[in-house]
């Protein structure tokens, strides 16, 4: 009955990337964890899934009243509410997903200390659970475009690529924060603060057009700068600043690779320190 598979357990040393083949093997479990996270997120709330749209809609209303009407901030073409909402859709996905990913390992310590599976599934499922909210918000975007009679641009074919880059950035940052948080609980206090600040260094409220050219390269280091720009270009035909988008995409990729290596290195001791 003994099968041909032989598993060798040994101390692991040095840097290794996450075993992608193993992740693929456990894809069903990823699905179950993701589905669990979706199911329990809005359990015992009155509004339930509506929370997914309440957050960006309220933020959009406040931004429009405060920054657009009162402070006079302009969009780079489309009506300001539409402009702000597209940015918020991406930003809120990113901020919710990385916060959930950062807290995910601590929230699942029972699983980690009692059963084996690739640990990366936990933060990845936490991130994946917000993709649903994101998709719902894209539907709202479509509704708003109809309402404002804003034509769909041909750039929409790039939308899947934009989503992919956003997921790469989110997974990279999420894995890094999750791994660090397991060892150093400082992360728990730092994340909410940096998420708040992040909104201001991402062109959600304002357009990059309003920022002096010489700051563009610095802002591009924030992966979400390029993602928001790319979303606006593909959905609303805002002018695209390709250098910034390219820079952010490159940073996203670097973050993901770094996240995969760092997570793998730190995951060995998760069960001991968590």
């Amino acid at each position: 009955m003994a099968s041909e598979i032989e598993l060798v357990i040994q101390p692991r040393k040095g840097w290794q990337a996450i075993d992608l083949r193993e992740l693929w093997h456990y894809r069903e479990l990823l699905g179950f964890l993701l589905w669990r996270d979706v199911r329990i997120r809005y359990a015992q709330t009155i509004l339930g899934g509506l929370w997914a749209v309440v957050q960006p809609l309220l933020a959009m209303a406040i931004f429009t009243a405060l920054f657009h009407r009162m402070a006079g901030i302009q969009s780079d073409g489309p009506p300001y509410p539409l402009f702000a909402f597209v940015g918020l859709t991406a930003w809120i996905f990113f901020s919710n997903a990385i916060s959930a990913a950062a807290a995910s390992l601590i929230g699942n310590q029972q699983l980690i200390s009692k059963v084996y599976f690739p640990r990366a599934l936990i933060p990845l499922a936490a991130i994946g659970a917000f993709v649903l909210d994101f998709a719902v918000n894209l539907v709202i975007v479509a509704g708003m475009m109809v309402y404002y009679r804003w034509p769909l641009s041909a750039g929409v074919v790039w939308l899947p690529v934009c989503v992919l880059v956003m997921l790469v950035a989110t997974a990279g940052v999420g894995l890094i924060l999750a791994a660090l948080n397991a060892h150093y609980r400082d992360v728990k206090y730092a994340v909410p603060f940096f998420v708040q600040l992040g909104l201001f260094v991402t062109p959600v409220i304002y357009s990059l057009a309003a920022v002096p050219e010489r700051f563009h390269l610095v802002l591009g280091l924030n992966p979400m700068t390029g993602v928001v720009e790319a979303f606006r270009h593909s959905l609303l035909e805002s002018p695209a600043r390709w250098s910034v988008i390219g820079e952010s995409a490159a940073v996203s990729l670097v973050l993901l690779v770094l996240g995969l290596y760092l997570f793998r290195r730190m995951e060995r001791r998760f069960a001991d320190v968590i």
Partner: protein
Amino acid sequence: MGGPAIIEVERLSKSYRLGITRAPFDNLREALFRGLRAPAEAWTRLNKRRKEDGRDILWALRDLSFSVAEGDVVGIIGANGAGKSTLLKILSRITDPTEGTVRIRGRLSSLLEVGTGFHPELTGRDNIYLNGAVLGMRKSEIDARFDAIVDFAEMAAFLDTPVKRYSSGMYVRLAFAVAAHLDPEILIVDEVLAVGDLAFQRKCLGKMGEVSRGGRTVLFVSHNMAAVEHLCRIGLVLEGGRLVFHGSTKEAVEYYVRSPAAEGPGAESHSTDLSRAGTRPPQFRPALRRLELFTAGGAPLSANIPVGGYFRAEVRFALERPTSSFDVSIRFDDLLGQRILAVNTAFDPAFERREHGGELEAVCEIASLTLTPGSYKLRVALLVGNTEIDVVEDARRLTVVPSDYYGTGRMPRTGTFVVPHRWSLR
């Protein structure tokens, strides 16, 4: 043994770095002061650690080598802290070894807990799928066994109820039902049978027996020696992280019961210091101070008490706040881990309680301790309002020696108790 090795463990070691324990903050000023200093201290610690000679390192497992043949059912025995759980965690890949190699040739499932991954907000049905997936089942496998799992748990009516509304018994039944339908080549089971009601425990033991007769390789950890002897053919005894015995279960159990580690603390004195006892579960802060035992005529009782002898225990403890709703209990367990007898202030209708804070002494008298000859572990607990606030497991050992209890020179060789009794002919 026979058959090829399905698990090979070679020179396996695991060390933990002991955390640096610091005194709790005494006041707000100190807390603030230390909070400000913490980053600097953490930095010096990190730097020092790299050069540290390893004095704060604990070896949970040391140089373990053994192999398990296909189809073997192996019981792992040892006192708390002997390294049983660490071994299972390494075999289940939850934690990495520090040194050594393990080779596993087959699909392995481990059951270190029942209901791992259960989420209280999800329904029974959802949790069967989630738990099954966490334990390594494919969705198609869960689909195929779903009805059998529900039947085994006997709870078809509650499938669509969130498990947070389940009683703890129902919860355990469902969790075990999922686990019982795993179909691995190697099964690793930690002390999971200690939960649930008696009837269900028996059903689980039956299922385990079925599993082991099915030619499957099983590694089983339990404190219940009767279960180990009943289920396992081969026993491993761990002591202080080392493998000290590897042989038949019967011999392993005998070895364990006779070994010095099983003899326990305070073997020579009638008095045991409970405030620093190493057998206090980590969640408790010491409130129990001292246990003193006496026998007939007030003589100190250090080790042996005759069957039917007078027994007096004096338990000294401290109450943080004045209260009258405290209780003290002493439990007698045999060395196989079976609970034999419990005495408790709550059981005595004549016990006069009064409100009290600070140090107190509770005295328990048993006019005639009618346990049969053998060794017993005493577990002492302090309760306030029915909640245990301090427990010392295995506080000390007591040996009951044969006596002429019945006045006939005869003593039963089996059983747990002697009781006065009369016979007559008609």
